[in-house]
C-alpha cells in the first residue's frame, strides 16, 4: 500500500481534519487506490515540458490601481462569525 494509517494521520493533521481511528484503515486503502491509479502518469515522458498552472495558457496577469475602493464594512465582515466581540473575531485561545 502506498499510504499507510500513519501517513493518513499525518496528512489529516496537516489538513486539520479529525479522522476517527476506525476510518484510518479504509482511508489508507482508498488513498492508496487513487494514488496508485494516478501513478500511470509516470509512464509519460514529460522531460522539458513547462508545467501549466493556470486555466489559461496565454493570459497576462492584470494589475489594479493603488486605490482605496472599499470603505468600512465591519458589520458585513462579522455578520457570519460564530463568535465576535467588540468588533473582533473571537476564537478559541491560542497558546504560544
Amino acid at each position, binding site marked *: 500500500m502506498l499510504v499507510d494509517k500513519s501517513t493518513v494521520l499525518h496528512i489529516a493533521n496537516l489538513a486539520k481534519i479529525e479522522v476517527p481511528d476506525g476510518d484510518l484503515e479504509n482511508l489508507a486503502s482508498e488513498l492508496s487506490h487513487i494514488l496508485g491509479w494516478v501513478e500511470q502518469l509516470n509512464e509519460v515522458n514529460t522531460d522539458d515540458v513547462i508545467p501549466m498552472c493556470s486555466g489559461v495558457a496565454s493570459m497576462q496577469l492584470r494589475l489594479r490601481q493603488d486605490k482605496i475602493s472599499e470603505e468600512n464594512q465591519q458589520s458585513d*465582515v462579522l455578520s457570519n462569525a460564530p463568535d465576535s466581540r467588540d468588533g473582533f473575531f473571537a476564537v478559541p485561545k491560542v497558546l504560544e
Partner: protein
Amino acid sequence: MSKLEGKTWTWETVIGLEIHAQITTKSKLFSGASTKFGALPNTQVTLVDVAMPGMLPVLNEMAVEQIVRTGLAINAEINLYSVFDRKNYFYPDLPQGYQISQFSDPIVGKGEIEIKMDDGEKRGVGITRIHLEQDAGKSIHDMDPSFTYVDLNRSGVPLMEIVSEPDLRSSAEAAAYVRKIRAILQYIGSCDGNMERGNLRCDVNVSVRRKGDPLGTRCEIKNVNSIRFLKQAIDYEANRQLNIIENGDKVTQETRLFDSVTGKTRSMRSKEEAHDYRYFPDPDLLPLQLKKSYVDRLSAELPELPDQKLLRFVNELGLSLDVAEEFVFEKEKADYFEPIATGRDAKLVANMVRKDVFGYANFHSINISDVPVTPQKYGELIDLIVEGDINNRIASEIFILMAKTGKDAEVIVQEKGLRQLSDTNELEVVIEKVIEVSEKQVAQYKNGNQKIIGWFVGQIMQKTKGQANPKVVNALLRKKLN
C-alpha cells in the same frame, strides 16, 4: 562583540536576516481596503481580506512598482517573470488558510549592499532575494482569559521579504545592515521603516562555528522589532549556542522568540507537526510578467540613494565621515539638515542642528520631524549667527524659546534685546574694568599662560549677559593685555 572567545577555540557567529518591510501603499496587496495604521478592529477589511467564499485576489500595481524600485536600489536582478505561490498553514489570523507569497520565482533576485564591517572595511552583504507577500492579521491574546481576539485590518497588507545571505559575523554588523536597508527603503519611499509599528521587522538566523568550519545548526529568532533588541538577541543567542557546543551538546534547529524584558531568547512552544507549507502556484493569479522598458523607467527615476548622499555630504559639504553617516542613515536627520545647509556654511549648520535640534528631539523623546521649529525657521536663526548678530550660545537659547513660543528668531532677538555686542568702544570699557580687578590673572598671562584668555572671555560674557561677540572680545583682550 565581534569575536566569541570560547574555552577551547575562537568561534564566530554567522548571521543571516529576513526583513519583512511593509510596502508603502494606500490599499492592500490584493484588495481595495486601506492600509492606514491605527483604525478600529476589522474596519479596514474587505470580503477578500476575510476570505469569504468565492473572493478573489487582484494585484496592486503600486506594490509591484515599490518592490521593483527596492530591487533596483540594491543593484539586484529584476525577474521579468515571477509567480505567486500559496503557503498553506492554519492560524486564526490567516483567513485564507494560506498566505499568498512567492516561492520559486520571486520578483527580485540576487543583489548586494555594502556596509562597514567590524574591521572597518567596507564589504558587500549578499541579498538572496526579495519577494512580495501578504501580511497576516493580528491576534490579541490578553483581552479575554478564554478567547483570542482577531483583528484583520493588517491582513493582506503588502510586505516585501528581504532575505540576506549568511554574510554577517556580529551583532554590530547585523545592526549596520538593518540600518542601511532601512535607509535605502526610506530614501526610495518603499517602506517608512517604522520598527515600533512593526512596519519593518527582522527574523534573524543565528549559528556559531569554529572559524573555517562549515555552517553550524541555526536558530531563527522571530519578529525582532528594534535595532537594540536585534543586537541583544544575537549576542544572547550566540553565547547560548556556544555554551551548548562547549558542553559537548548539539544545538537544535528551532524557532525562538526574543524577550525584550529579560534580554533572552526562548524556544517557541514546539509545533505539533513539522511544517510542510505545501507551496504551489496560486491558481487565482497568473504569472506576473514585467516589461524591460518598465523596469528601465523605474531605474531612471530612482532618487538619490544613501551612499550617493554620503559621498556628497563629505565631498561637497565638507562634513566629517562620522557626521555624514549619522545624518544619512537616519533619514530624518538628513531631511532636517539638508534644506538648511543648502547655501549656508554646512559645517556650522551640522554642528548647530546636532546640538540644538537633535538634542531637543532626543531630550523630549520625539521624532525629529516633530520638533516644533521647521528647518526654514532654524535656517533664519543660523543666518543671525552668520551675520554676527548673535553668537552660537545665544542662538541655542533662542532656539529653545522658538520651540516654546513658536516665534521667529528675529522676533525673539528684538524682544529680549539679545543682539550681540560688537561695538569696540562699549566692549573696551567692559574689558578695562575686568582687567582692573584681575591683577592675579593678568600676572599669570604675562608669565605665559595663554589659556587664561578663556577665563577673561568668560568674565566678559558674564558682564554682557552673553551678548558680547566672542571674536571681537578675543582680539581686544589680546591687544589690551599685551
